[in-house]
């Protein structure tokens, strides 16, 4: 891998660039997930977001997710870029691209990637609401670490 398939970036993410990384003559299907900043969440208005990452470990964990996927779904290629810093409404926070000879694996592996990102990758989101701000993680989104631990160290 000469390209960097797993990145944390403080620049806007170009979807096409991430897709290019996973293109292959053996791939018949590429799925992408593009996570964007939504304005309204349960009746509350978001003004903007701030993402913070523990960068070297975040890249390591994204790489781990890629390896997990290639074990579970052979012949897939995976590329993930997550953005950090301030993001406005509609900005892209994360792009996941998965290529596979067949489409079923491309969908499943892609969804697996976003679930795992939300479990083990050290990135945090601060919501700047119309009237206040909060670091998310425990209260508003998922139960943290549903398996008790991030399930990394065996």
């Amino acid at each position, binding site marked *: 891998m000469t390209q960097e398939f797993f990145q944390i970036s403080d620049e806007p993410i170009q979807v096409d660039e991430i897709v290019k990384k996973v293109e292959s003559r053996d791939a018949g299907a590429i799925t992408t997930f593009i*996570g964007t900043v939504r304005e309204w969440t349960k009746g509350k208005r978001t003004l903007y977001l701030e*993402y*913070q*990452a*523990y960068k*070297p*470990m*975040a890249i*390591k964990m994204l790489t781990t997710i890629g390896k997990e996927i290639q074990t579970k779904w052979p012949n897939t290629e995976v590329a993930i870029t*997550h953005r950090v810093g301030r993001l406005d409404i509609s900005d892209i*926070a*994360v792009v996941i691209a998965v290529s596979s000879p067949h489409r079923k694996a491309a969908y499943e592996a892609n969804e697996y990637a*976003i679930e795992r*990102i*939300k*479990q*083990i*990758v*050290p*990135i*945090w*989101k*601060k919501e700047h609401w119309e009237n206040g701000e909060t*670091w*998310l*993680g*425990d209260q508003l*989104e998922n139960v*943290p*670490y549903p398996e008790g*631990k*991030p399930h*990394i*160290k065996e």
Partner: protein
Amino acid sequence: MITVLLFAQLQEDAGTDQLELNIDEINVRELKERLQSDYNLSKLDQVMVAVNEEYALDDDVIKKGDTVAIIPPVSGG
């Protein structure tokens, strides 16, 4: 010295993103207890700890020179 990295709300609570602790050896559980009492960091029951960029368990030992990250529940994606 052990370097402790703080993120998100914990960073704001502590008023810094990094602590240097003059400790030779300590396990993860003890470090969390010490951070809780000495730096008034609450909610450490929910955090994960990474030692040198790998998730660690409560009984894992931290030695001087290690970099420890206190990882509150993540919210990327």
